[in-house]
């Protein structure tokens, strides 16, 4: 219970700080809206009618991924400012609690932004995204993305070129998650049955487990000198 309580304390602290500044949420939201608007106009010139459905999943997940990168960049920068990460590392708790706390905060912020983005995307692209199966895909994709992103964010926060380094490291590693999420989203939009997209869902579940598990084992080496 104590371990869980400390994870929740970190999430609570991140939420309170974010409610006060709204820096991360506003940046993530505005950036993903811009991505969708730009894609919408770009596709409008070259892709018409039913074919929009073919490109929509890619555009959706690019917007989610970019917004996620912005959130991840902020996640550990806030901790590094004023040496707050050291304050966390001094607490009598296994350091993996810090990882799970920061990961949960990132997942929460990403999911809130994604929830706001779905109606915006529906309005611009004219595709109906209100499907419970899609919610499952978004949650799994977000957990996998934030799972690996959190540990890389902790790593890059200690470097000078952190804003540049994070996407360079994260996107290749998170590519399987993004590919699986795009494929599963395409399947939903194409009206496929759950059984047909099952293998992509299995891949998403695997990464939602594997990435946090790998981070669990390596996080202590990442954050300590």
């Amino acid at each position, binding site marked *: 219970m104590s371990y869980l*309580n400390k994870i929740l304390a970190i999430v609570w*602290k991140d939420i*309170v700080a974010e409610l*006060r500044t709204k820096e991360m949420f506003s940046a993530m939201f505005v950036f993903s809206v811009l991505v969708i608007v730009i894609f919408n106009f770009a596709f409008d010139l070259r892709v018409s009618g039913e074919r929009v459905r073919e490109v929509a999943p890619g555009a959706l997940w690019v917007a989610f991924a970019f917004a996620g990168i912005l959130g991840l960049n902020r996640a550990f920068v806030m901790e590094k400012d004023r040496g707050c990460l050291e304050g966390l590392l001094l*607490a*009598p708790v296994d350091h993996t609690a810090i990882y799970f706390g920061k990961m949960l905060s990132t997942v929460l912020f990403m999911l809130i932004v994604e929830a706001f983005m779905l109606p915006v995307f529906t309005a611009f692209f004219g595709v109906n995204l209100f499907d419970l199966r899609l919610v499952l895909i978004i949650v799994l994709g977000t957990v996998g993305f934030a799972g690996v992103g959190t540990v890389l964010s902790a790593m890059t926060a200690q470097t000078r070129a952190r804003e540049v380094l994070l996407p360079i490291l994260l996107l290749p590693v998170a590519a399987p998650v993004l590919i699986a999420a795009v494929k599963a989203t395409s399947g939903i939009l194409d009206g496929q049955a759950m059984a047909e997209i099952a293998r992509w869902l299995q891949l998403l579940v695997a990464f939602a487990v594997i990435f946090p598990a790998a981070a669990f084992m390596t996080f202590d080496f990442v954050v*300590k000198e």
Partner: protein
Amino acid sequence: MAAVAAQPVEPGASPPAIEVHRLVKSFGHRTALRGVDLEVAEGEFLTLFGPNGAGKTTLIRCVSSLTRPSAGTVRLRGEDLSKAATSLRRHIGLISHNPLLYGDLTAEENLRFFARMYDLADAQARIDAALQQVGLFARRRDPVRDYSRGMVQRLAIARAILHDPSIMLLDEPYTGLDLQAADMLRSVLQDLAASNRTVILTTHNLEQGLEMCDRAAILHRGKIAWQGVRTGLDLAGMKQIYRDVTRLA
């Protein structure tokens, strides 16, 4: 005054609160600590002097478990820090030039967060007491980013003592403080020294460092170059020793 060597612990006697043995820390090709040996008895106040770059901060970071040593051991209260870091951290309070506080949270929220991280019972009472001790109770609901440097450092002290640690590590705590804030810090340090806590204070200010210590040591080029008891040592004598040691070593 003669330098004192570390004494071996007699069987049955309580182990030193802090025991550093042949500690080495390298960052790439640069070696910050070159085999440091140091013992601090329970309730003892040790001031560690040394010029910039001597390795004081690295030593404090190793003792506080923030930095993993390249070689050697750190034992706190008789236990190996590398093996029992999670439980031993409960006994450590750290004040450094970084406040380790969140600017977007209020003073009270910061302390409540750390109280949860340390599983403190009667958290609200401890938070109120700590804030009153450092004179910030009236400003407890203001975000820390609105505080002056002195107020931030006072809150950092409240954070460090909130869980009532038996070992206090103070890394250049006077850095950037005005006279009033330095006086406040001095008063809190006097309380710490009087409450039988084990304290290591690092500084290159000889006057501030000598004020409350039981023993002084000089760290130079990653090694303990000199150590001796405070009794009979005045500022002029310490200045001479410091000059000699840092010139010769």
